[in-house]
């Protein structure tokens, strides 16, 4: 019987290889097929001993060739490995890595979202004579070996909400979080709490969690991965991938295919390679801290050695994170340090005990260190064209602002308040004295001035009929916009898309795009407007001061053909990246603005945009200015930058969190199509999000939703008023009132620590 099991196992291994390498010709696979075939053909005629001998030989051959195949895996092969139903999944890890666990927040299909699995797990070990039971919160996507209801690990918005809930529980219980990422991407529906908004919320909360977070990446598909992947220590399995988008998705965009069309497999292969999504690539770029070697052709549920390795690395990583923020650690830290591989290998992580609950001081430090870690990422992925002198100058300027704001707000602030209060009191006292003294004089004056005059006095009459405030000029209403769209210079009639339903008459382009600011005067439909319109019509005249213009979008992955596309975008728009950061004033109030301009590569966010955004946030924080993210339009993360782009999601969100925690006011204003990564992170996390009526807000466009979920969405699915209904935004503004509304927001919203408060 034993021998038949062995043969069966070999057959399984062969079919697995077939699945991974597909129909391509592969000599190794063919060799295995031929040998196994030969053996099976002869099989029954041989003696048992001979069979055993040949099976053992075959097993050796399999082992040898699997290693060989493993060496020549293409990125796309790895994608197929992680998606294979036989790949080990989170349940296997819970069984094999942890000593005890119970699933919480639902079980199997009886869960709010079966693709998000939460477990309270224990790692028990004996160190010396003592047994330690260390609890952790395990959070991760469950692919469930192809179980239909698991949805392939594609987590719905409420699944991410569930994850967030138990992260908060871990925070309360002061236990570490182990996050396992097994997702091709989030399920892109907008139903409450909304795919994008929930991921943004998760990122925002994780940025401030004060318990250690260790993440393990197996399949890290874009936004879905980020929803639980913001970690202090990021481990990656050697056969996994971590990418901005699935290779198929990238190929569909690259090949400009329409919905329903098939993409050429070669293009998908090429995209998988160009996106640099493998563990080695990510380690090299610094987006994961460590790669865990899997057995050849990837870990499957019975690779027990692998689980043991994983357990060790998880313990080591958790220990290391905790030791990095705690005193009394010297020897243990040295023992865990991975600087010398040999030394590390010699120490069994199980033998080093570190208490996993930490005190309040180190807890604060933990979040800070996490920020520092992410702040330093992707620094090589953008072009900084500043000269050394300019760099030194900007460092000096930063320092000066820090000093200035310290003195103004921390040091003098308290004393000034006291002084003001004193002056106020004294004035009130003085007034009482003055009134008492002056009272008799006023009485006499009243008696002298004879009253009872029914005629309106000349002066009173004048105040009703003479020009008031002559200095304001005659024309109070002669308002014309400071910037006119180029479309306002064409002599043509424009038909409103609502004409059929609302009976709007055709509008003349100069009226529509000039006087009406692109708003249909009949139904209020907002035509999209150039971002320059806002620059000139929202902010005070000539108050815009741009900074960090020298930071330019680059091509960090050397993506073929992308250099030229970037050059074209720069040429066409005159911008150096999709993000323009500047200081400006509205009615005299200073604010920092980060603008995402749709004409530059669809307003996509890459390393340069993220860096500029973060620097703008830091500037606003230093100067105690309010911060406005004006999203003229964004199509998401720039896929050609791969993880360099995706990593901007946690980075920018953390910057925003620091700013808000410091008492700032962070406003987001969406103007046109605003989708995907940015909305699912640093934009969606704002408590004050507003939209111009022309906005569409969401996670994925209609095409992607149809392709990934099979749902046909109605055409108004992403409209601003739907986002308002779902609670994703807090208001819809008329474009012509953007200035007024922003000013109102600056006065009334957020921020205990703004310079003008």
């Amino acid at each position: 019987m034993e021998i038949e099991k062995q043969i069966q196992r070999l057959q399984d291994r062969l079919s697995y290889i077939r699945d991974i390498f597909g129909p391509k010709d592969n000599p190794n696979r063919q060799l295995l097929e031929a040998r196994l075939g030969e053996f099976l053909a002869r099989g029954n005629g041989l003696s048992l001993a001979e069979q055993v001998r040949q099976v053992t030989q075959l097993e050796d051959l399999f082992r040898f060739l699997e290693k060989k195949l493993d060496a020549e895996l293409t990125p796309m092969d790895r994608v197929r490995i992680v998606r294979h139903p036989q790949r080990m999944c989170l349940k296997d890890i819970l069984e094999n890595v942890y000593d005890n666990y119970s699933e919480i927040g639902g079980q199997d299909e009886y869960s709010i979202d079966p693709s998000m699995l939460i477990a309270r797990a224990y790692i028990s070990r004996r160190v010396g004579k003592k047994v330690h039971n260390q609890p952790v919160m395990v959070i991760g996507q469950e692919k469930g070996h192809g179980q239909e209801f698991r949805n392939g690990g594609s987590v719905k918005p409420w699944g991410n909400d569930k994850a967030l809930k138990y992260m908060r529980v871990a925070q309360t219980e002061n236990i570490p979080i182990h996050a396992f990422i097994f997702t091709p991407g989030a399920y892109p529906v907008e139903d409450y709490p909304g795919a994008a908004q929930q991921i943004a919320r998760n990122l925002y909360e994780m940025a401030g969690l004060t318990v250690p977070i260790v993440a393990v990446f197996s399949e890290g598909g874009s936004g879905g991965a980020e929803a639980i992947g913001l970690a202090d220590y990021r481990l990656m399995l050697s056969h996994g991938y971590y990418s901005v988008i699935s290779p198929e998705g990238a190929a569909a965009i690259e090949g400009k295919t329409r919905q329903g069309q098939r993409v050429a497999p070669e293009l998908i292969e090429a995209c998988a390679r160009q996106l640099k999504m493998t563990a080695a690539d990510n380690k090299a770029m610094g987006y994961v801290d460590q790669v865990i070697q899997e057995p050849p052709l990837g870990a499957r549920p019975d690779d027990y050695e692998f689980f043991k390795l994983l357990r060790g690395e998880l313990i080591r990583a958790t220990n290391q994170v905790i030791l990095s923020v705690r005193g009394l650690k010297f020897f243990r830290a040295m023992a865990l340090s991975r600087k010398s591989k040999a030394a590390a290998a010699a120490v069994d992580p199980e033998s080093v005990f570190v208490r996993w609950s930490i005190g309040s001081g180190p807890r604060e430090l933990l979040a800070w260190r996490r920020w520092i870690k992410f702040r330093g990422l992707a620094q090589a992925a953008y072009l900084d064209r500043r000269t050394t002198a300019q760099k030194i100058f900007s460092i000096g300027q930063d320092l000066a602002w820090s000093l200035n704001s310290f003195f103004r707000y921390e040091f003098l602030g308290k004393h000034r308040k006291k002084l003001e209060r004193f002056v106020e009191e004294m004035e009130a006292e003085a007034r009482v004295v003055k009134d008492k003294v002056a009272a008799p004089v006023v009485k006499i004056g009243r008696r002298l001035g004879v009253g009872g005059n029914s005629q309106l006095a000349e002066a009173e009459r004048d105040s009703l009929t003479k020009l008031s405030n002559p200095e304001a000029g005659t024309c109070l209403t002669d308002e014309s916009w400071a910037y006119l769209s180029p479309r306002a210079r064409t002599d043509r009639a424009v038909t409103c898309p609502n004409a059929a339903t609302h009976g709007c008459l055709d509008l003349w382009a100069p009226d529509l795009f000039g006087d009406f600011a692109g708003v249909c005067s009949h139904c209020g439909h907002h035509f999209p407007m150039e971002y320059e319109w806002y620059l000139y019509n929202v902010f005070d005249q000539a108050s815009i001061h741009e900074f960090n213009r020298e930071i330019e979008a680059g091509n960090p992955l050397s993506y073929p053909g992308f250099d030229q596309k970037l050059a074209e975008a720069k040429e066409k728009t005159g911008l150096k990246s999709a993000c323009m950061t500047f200081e400006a004033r509205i009615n005299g109030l200073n604010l920092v603005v980060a603008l995402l301009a749709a004409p530059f590569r669809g307003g996509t966010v890459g390393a340069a945009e993220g860096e500029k955004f973060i620097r703008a946030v830091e500037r606003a924080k230093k100067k105690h200015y309010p911060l406005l993210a004006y999203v003229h339009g964004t199509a998401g993360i720039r896929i050609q930058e791969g993880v360099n782009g995706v990593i901007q999601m946690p980075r920018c969100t953390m910057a925003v969190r620091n700013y808000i925690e410091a008492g700032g006011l962070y406003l987001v204003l969406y103007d046109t199509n605003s989708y995907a990564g940015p909305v699912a992170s640093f934009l969606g996390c704002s408590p004050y999000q507003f939209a111009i009526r022309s906005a569409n807000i969401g996670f994925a466009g209609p095409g992607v939703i149809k392709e990934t979920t099979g749902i046909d969405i109605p055409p108004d699915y992403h409209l601003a008023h739907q986002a308002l209904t779902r609670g994703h935004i807090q208001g819809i503004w008329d474009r012509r009132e953007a200035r007024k509304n922003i000013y109102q927001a600056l006065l009334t919203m957020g921020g205990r620590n703004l310079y003008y408060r």
Partner: protein
Amino acid sequence: MKAKRHKVLVANRGEIAIRIVNACLKLGLDFVCVHTREDHASGHVRLAREMGGEKSLYRVASYHDASELLAVADAAGATAVHPGYGFFAEDFRFARRVVTRDRPLTWIGPSWRVIRELGDKINTKRLARRLNVPTVPGSDRPIYDELEAEDMAAKLFAFQSEQGFDQHVVLVKASAGGGGMGIEEVERIDVFKSVYRRLRNYAKRQFLDEGVLIEQRLFGFNHLEVQILGDTSGKNVVHFGTRNCSVQSAGRQKRIEVAPGFAPAEINYRFDAARVLNDITEYSLRIAREVCYDSVGTWEWIVTPKGEPFLMEVNTRIQVENGVSGAIAAIGGIGPVDLVAEQIRVALGEPLGYDQGRIGLKGASIEYRIIAEDPDNRFAPWVGRIERFDWRREPWLTVHSHVPTDTPYEIPTEYDPNLALAIVTGQDLAEAKARGLAFLDGLVLAGRNAGGGELKSNVDFLRKKTDTLLVF
């Protein structure tokens, strides 16, 4: 003198379209008319067909669709657009479009800048105040301060009692509002504050601007007008006297207009009426000169029972009642004056050719607006079929009407139910009144509606009002 023969697009309907076509014929210009399906039987359609043939008629879906009207202008090869009154007459955007489009046309009316400047009431008020022209007392800019607003309201109440008005109403308006939204009436000063606060909060919520205007509603005043004309140089501005338009319907629409505005020679006033007429004419000219007024226009005035004039607004267009001013006017001794023709003539670039000294104003003229409506029922319009419509022809009578006298006519429900304008002239007001009564007595107007009801008209109302015309 003219390099090319102009062709005027008549972008209007009914009575004014007829007058424009007639003026074009008089000036030797081509014209093209538009009409909607509902208006196929209107007099202007018949006139255009008769004088210009089918090629001078285009059917449009709406008189309100600028793109369609301009498409007609292009198709017909028109070179100028006359908007008449209503519709696009005071729409500066349409005027701007006409003159700035790729194939520019001549706009027969004030330049779009003038329309824009004088089209805004607050703007006009501030302009007038700068020129020391009296305007209706009240605020000329949004007020944000509660004490200032209350103070102004108190003064307005004092003003109203001083001027002898028996009903006192102060209006609080949201300055960012419009279309009747955000207006409240206050009748006593002690409730002002609460009304003001309510409106201010409403305005802040609704329009994001808490500025309010403090104005007043006046009752029992006389409504006077000054007829102005200027040429495109903007330097030659003349007037054609005053009109009194105080006889109005319940909805404040004019029913009888009289030129001149007062008759001090025949009627006793409690104030110096001749001086008032003189003053408002001077004031109107002052503003017209300031803005370089370049077409026909009307300055509307309120005269209080104590004889104080206040500028209300400026109408930057030809008005319905231009005929009464034309009827008493003569240029170089030749009258009456066709103001529509003058408007077209100067718009096409001809200089005015005369000054104020050559304009003579003599006698009196009354215009009756004959309308199918029920004056006893708040002037509700009457809809039906007119079977008989006729009057005795007289040398002192001009009737402008698009309603045929030879065939029955169904009143279209889509447009206002104005049937005819009858202009009666006389040596003095007494003669004009007597002739007016004679005309009304001889007028034949009968019809039935779908329910078999008799036609209702305002003829009795007009007759009743004739006696007291210009008495104030």
